[in-house]
């Protein structure tokens, strides 16, 4: 993204109608991958950015997730289309330097272990192809050559060759380094302060921080700030990380995604004990294995019964994991919206407030692009993709009742 184009709205009259000779001052709430990206692109466009986090960088779901930059896993419709834009954004920024060394192209394998799952995978493959994605059918023998040791129950698979891998906390760190925006840690925002219907700053404990505009990318913490308590819900995911299977580089040639994960993403199962299995080979040679999908759970505890269930699924899909040790378990809290789509756009009533949250389990894939898009919206620019499906406007009526 070339920031120069934002110039005119930063000085003179910005989209909030304020005449100003000093750069626009934006308070960004949340230093996850979305907030860091928004801050980076705002700063690159010349804005003055105050970046706040209740804890610290990548303290939420960004630092507790797998590293899938995956179109393969997305629900058909706007999410699949936006994921393609978001992944292209990674590719471009890897090439141009911003994400150099942090984004790696790799295949996603959608894996079926029963006839019903095979149908689901095939249907999903059709949806991906219709969205313009490359999809390769792969028989068991070929798959075994690519991923030696796969379980006997694996009966069908599709390869999505253009997906990628990035770690949320590494991307966040890079964005913060490059933008040179300093982070105020341990700065929980208690209120977005409004004056005459327009945001004029934020309150951090008893301190008022003035700002011309506020961008909220605080995950589940966005709910109380925006009155979205009825709309955003936490969905906990438990995961495990193993020791290294290789001295460096991914241990297997792609991201393994079980049909059970697709079933959850497509809304076919909505059971709190459901395991949406993914096996993510990390660049360190370790495996990240997830995960549970526990609605209304905002805590970060993990329990042995759930982790053991995840591991049993993982061993069935990929038995060589029996040669690994679990180094730790952890839980991330995804922020989901009622209708399953993220919320990105201008606040329907509060001028000067831009929202970018509700990315559920797709924040690593979508985050950098959505942060950049939210920055553009704030600056009065048109985003690179049509975000109308994500507009907060769709909940405006709901909020009016809150």
């Amino acid at each position: 993204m070339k920031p120069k184009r934002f110039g005119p709205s930063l000085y003179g009259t910005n989209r909030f109608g304020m005449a100003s000779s000093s750069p626009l001052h934006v308070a960004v709430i949340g230093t996850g991958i979305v907030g860091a990206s928004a801050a980076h692109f705002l700063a690159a466009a010349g804005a003055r950015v105050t970046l706040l986090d209740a804890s610290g960088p990548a303290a939420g779901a960004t630092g507790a997730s797998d590293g899938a930059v995956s179109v393969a896993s997305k629900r058909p419709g706007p999410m699949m289309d936006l994921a393609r834009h978001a992944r292209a954004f990674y590719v471009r920024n890897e090439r141009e330097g911003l994400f150099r060394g942090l984004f790696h192209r790799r295949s996603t394998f959608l894996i079926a272990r029963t006839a019903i799952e095979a149908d689901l995978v095939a249907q999903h493959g059709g949806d991906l192809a219709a969205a313009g994605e490359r999809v390769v059918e792969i028989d068991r023998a070929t798959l075994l050559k690519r991923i030696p040791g796969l379980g006997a129950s694996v009966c069908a698979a599709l390869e999505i060759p253009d997906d990628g891998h990035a770690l949320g906390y590494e991307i966040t760190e890079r964005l913060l380094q490059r933008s040179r925006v300093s982070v105020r840690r341990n700065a929980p925002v208690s209120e977005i302060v409004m004056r005459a219907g327009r945001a004029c700053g934020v309150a951090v404990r008893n301190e008022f921080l003035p700002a011309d505009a506020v961008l909220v990318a605080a995950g589940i913490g966005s709910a109380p700030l925006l009155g979205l308590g009825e709309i955003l819900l936490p969905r906990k995911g438990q995961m495990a990380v193993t020791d290294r299977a290789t001295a460096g580089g991914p241990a297997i040639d792609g991201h393994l995604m079980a049909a059970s994960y697709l079933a959850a993403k497509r809304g076919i199962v909505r059971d709190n004990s459901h395991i949406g299995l993914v096996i993510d080979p990390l660049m360190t040679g370790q495996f990240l294995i997830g995960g549970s999908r526990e609605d209304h759970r905002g805590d970060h505890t993990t329990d042995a019964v759930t982790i053991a269930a995840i591991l049993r699924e993982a061993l069935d899909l990929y038995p060589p994991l029996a040669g690994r040790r679990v180094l730790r378990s952890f839980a991330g809290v995804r922020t989901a919206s009622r209708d399953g789509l993220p919320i990105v756009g201008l606040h329907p009533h509060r001028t000067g407030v831009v929202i970018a949250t509700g990315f559920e389990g797709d924040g690593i894939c979508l985050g950098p692009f959505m942060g950049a898009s939210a920055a553009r919206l704030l600056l009065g620019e048109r985003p690179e993709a049509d975000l109308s499906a994500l507009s907060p406007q769709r909940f405006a009526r709901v909020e009016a009742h809150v």
Partner: protein
Amino acid sequence: MTSYFSWNGNPVAFQPGETIAAALLRAGIIDLGQPLNTPGGRVFCGIGACQGCVVAVADAAPVEACLTPARDGLRLGSLPAVGADHV
């Protein structure tokens, strides 16, 4: 009768009840291999805490050499050794 396990393909003798670590050290094997960009593995704390002496086990998960009794026929090697020939 002496028992043996294999270390990176070579037999190492041990006495009954002895740990893998004790047998390796007696055989003069101090450097347990170069698993990472870090130096080779080694017996260090002796109580399973430091994880410096973790060794790969054929067909099983790695173990701490200092905690694990040696067993006849175990095939052991330097980490990580998944798919490596010597285990």
